[in-house]
């Protein structure tokens, strides 16, 4: 019944704290980000289109978004599996495993990058077994996917896990009392409840992978048109003092990440639609 309106609230400090927040946000985030669009606006439309549709650039989109999609799909599947195992089963070392799932958040991307590159290189721990079978991972697009699976792994697990924990066990019990098999219960009752969270985690993993730089460049091989990701291309352009070209590609990437952020927000709203 009580209002929580700013002017009705007796707690002190609303104006200064909101003011500081907006000011700091503007200085650190909004103004710098807007510089990207202002810089892009100095290009003519044709220049802009030429910059973002050059064959090498388009190839880098294909590599980046194709690998991100593949990695996000892998993560969606294994993420659900890991979340399921962590929530539903008990096994020794479970808490350790649970904590380790966040390793990709905590491990600096450069460390992840050189480590994955060395494991999957032809004489690395795994590479030496894969190479004889004709599977090349390091310095190929497949390596990019591996790196992106690594950094995206926690997103699906951490969005699905709480949903699975909150899921009322009585629903499953009710379903099985009504004669559903375990598999029917899973795909008719449990899976639909998890779906919004899975999609959210998928989108988060995809967004993270698309922007990823550090962990990918070491294992990618960075061959133009084959295994060159867009963020690397931005840096290459920058090093060639092609600021306009770098900026044009960067603003395109930024728009994509805004759209992803928007869809993630909508997904989260959708996932709350059944919440009481």
């Amino acid at each position, binding site marked *: 019944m009580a209002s929580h309106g700013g002017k009705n609230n007796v707690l002190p400090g609303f104006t200064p*704290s909101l003011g500081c927040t907006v000011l700091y946000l503007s200085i*650190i985030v909004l103004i710098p980000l807007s510089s990207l669009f202002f810089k892009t606006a100095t290009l003519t439309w044709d220049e802009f289109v030429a910059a973002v549709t050059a064959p090498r650039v388009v190839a880098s989109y294909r590599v980046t978004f194709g690998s991100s999609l593949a990695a996000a799909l892998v993560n969606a599947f294994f993420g659900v599996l*890991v979340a399921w195992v962590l929530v539903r089963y008990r096994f020794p070392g479970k808490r350790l495993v649970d904590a380790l799932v966040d390793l990709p958040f905590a491990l*600096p991307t450069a*460390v992840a990058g050189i480590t994955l590159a*060395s494991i999957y290189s032809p004489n690395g721990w795994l590479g030496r077994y894969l190479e004889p079978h004709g599977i090349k991972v390091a310095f190929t697009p497949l390596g990019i996917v591996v790196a992106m699976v690594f950094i995206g792994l926690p997103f699906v697990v951490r969005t699905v896990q709480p949903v699975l924990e909150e899921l009322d066990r009585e629903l499953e019990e009710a379903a099985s009392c009504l004669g559903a098999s375990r598999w029917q219960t899973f795909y008719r009752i449990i899976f639909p409840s998890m779906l919004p969270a899975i999609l959210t985690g998928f989108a988060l993993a995809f967004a993270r992978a698309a922007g990823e730089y550090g962990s990918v460049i070491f294992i990618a091989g960075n061959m133009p048109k084959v295994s060159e990701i867009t963020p690397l291309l931005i840096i290459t352009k920058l090093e060639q003092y092609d600021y306009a070209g770098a900026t044009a590609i*960067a603003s395109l990437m930024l728009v994509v990440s805004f759209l992803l952020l928007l869809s993630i927000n909508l997904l989260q709203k959708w996932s709350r639609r059944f919440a009481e």
Partner: protein
Amino acid sequence: MQVSIHRTVKKNGTSGIAEPAWVRYLLLAVALSFLTLFLMLPLAAVFVQALDKGWEAYLEALKDPDTFSAIKLTLVAAACSVPVNLVFGVTAAWAIAKFAFPGKSLLITLIDLPFSVSPVVSGLIYVLIFGLQGWLGPWLQAHDVKIIFAVPGIILATIFVTFPFIARELIPLMESQGREEEEAALTLGASGLQTFFRVTLPNVRWGILYGVILCNARAMGEFGAVSVVSGHVRGSTNTIPLQVEILYNEYSYAAAFAVASLLAMLALVTLAVKSVAEWKIRQVSAAE
């Protein structure tokens, strides 16, 4: 590994709806293999390769003066960005969690923005402002102030990428705690500041620790954004991750992994502290 599976539900004595045992074992085996392959193996590889040439070489690599100055710069960058974002995070959480105002969800989305921006783009925007060809570049050069390819640029880029960590941890936590305790403190005669420091802050201290530790991990480990603004000047604008890259590209693998192992240890400490903080937060909210 010897695995014994009990459905959690068995504790309550209702186990009628479990999957068949072989399904459970299969799922568990697949999940753990996946995690081993993608998490444990790389983690182990860092340390094994770091010690590939023995302890002597390991310590030698860490004693290198360039490495030493990279460690120093990383600490400086973290020491600048974490406190700034801590003050911001607490301020933003107070405004957003304890008051209602139009545009609130937009503000929360904007605070989250740096998470969804590619690290490379995060670095680029500062180059566009402070770089030689940027908005302020000519003015800065005329006054002999260096930001890009210098320490201030690294600090700015680090602040940007770690911007949301503490705020986004505190906002939901403070929202869930409501305003009643603060109102109670006011009716008991506490001033605004007394209320904030004696009631609000102690209630979210584990949340603050959680946010700070994650913010710090990212600040010390950031690679892409810092790489763009650093200019890679050895011994002066290299942070630890950049030093790892340089050593790796020079084929000094053992040295690269030795330096990387420092960051891996930081990651492990981060995960440990994070788990403790999470456990404490859950305990506090369970007591309510």
